[in-house]
């Protein structure tokens, strides 16, 4: 069952960086006891054409908090549904934000990827608004004006496989 994988790279390899710009960030929290009704809201047909570029949810003792990154027009549809439901859901809205994301060989199985990412961005003074690492991908939500600098820093930190 157990396989020992050996990596030795002076710079961690990635398959390259991709970015998505001009997105809206919608943040909301909901009582965890009402997760079902929030799920019913998300699964309604009015929202089935939405294609969020990034979603994360975190749980505390009493609440589940969501972040959605959506293209501007789609974000308006989600806001409308949140406002027009029988018990309107308050949210925080930020526009514009950007996403840079990347993946690499066995990113999900290796240590050190997160440190390389956060260390390099922190040294450059770039604030990460939200992030999610699952499977072999790293997604970073940034203020729109930081995207060029962030990609430049990440390209110096990681080696893009040819």
């Amino acid at each position, binding site marked *: 069952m157990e396989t*020992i994988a050996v*990596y030795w790279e002076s710079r961690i390899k990635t398959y390259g960086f991709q970015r998505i710009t001009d997105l809206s960030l919608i943040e909301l929290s909901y009582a965890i006891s009402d997760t079902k009704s929030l799920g019913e809201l998300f699964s309604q047909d009015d929202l089935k054409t939405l294609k969020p570029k990034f979603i*994360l949810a975190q749980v505390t003792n009493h609440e589940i908090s969501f972040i959605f990154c959506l293209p501007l027009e789609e974000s308006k549809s989600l806001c409308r549904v949140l406002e027009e439901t029988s018990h309107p859901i308050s949210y925080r809205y930020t526009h514009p934000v950007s996403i840079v994301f990347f993946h690499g060989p066995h990113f999900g199985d290796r240590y050190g990827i997160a440190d390389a990412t956060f260390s390099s961005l922190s040294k450059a003074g770039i604030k990460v608004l939200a992030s999610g690492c699952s*499977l072999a*991908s790293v997604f970073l939500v940034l203020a729109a004006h930081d995207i060029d600098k962030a990609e430049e820093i990440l390209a110096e930190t990681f080696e893009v496989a040819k």
Partner: protein
Amino acid sequence: MEKLKIGGLKQSLELCQFELRGVHSSEEIALKVSKLLLSQKINMEFLTHSTQRNNYHQLTFCVSQDKFSPVLEILKKEHSLPIGWEISSRGNVGIITIFPHQSALKILGIVMVSWTSQSIPIYGIATSLSAISFITDYQLIDKAIQVVQDLFHLPEDHSPLKPEIRYVQSDIVKGD
């Protein structure tokens, strides 16, 4: 009603989950924790961090279940974390990843409704380019997968649900 098509489904091995909450800068906590785990050569298999609406920051991450005690120990060590940060931990969790073709938000909503109805908890969610990952109880993972298989149409030839290989990164290199 016709079932929505999904491209595949997979589950993780047994993991444990840590949640850190506080008012310090979230990226600094992500940096601090990733450095602590790097020093112990521990891989994070899942990570999310964000600022919540009450201005609290939260970092959630999962590591292999066999790393539960070492990680708890380094997090609780004096000066590891900023003063006032709360640490909560949860052992024996697993991640189910769904690969949707489309309608990711609808699939998310359907899973939330169905799992909640069957008392299957959701401890965290993150998407990547082509997948939605849900953290739940490892002891309920078979039940959670069965619910997903009943809800969605999977391709006939989808790859195995359970991991067949566990990779462990070694720092010993031949000829080094």
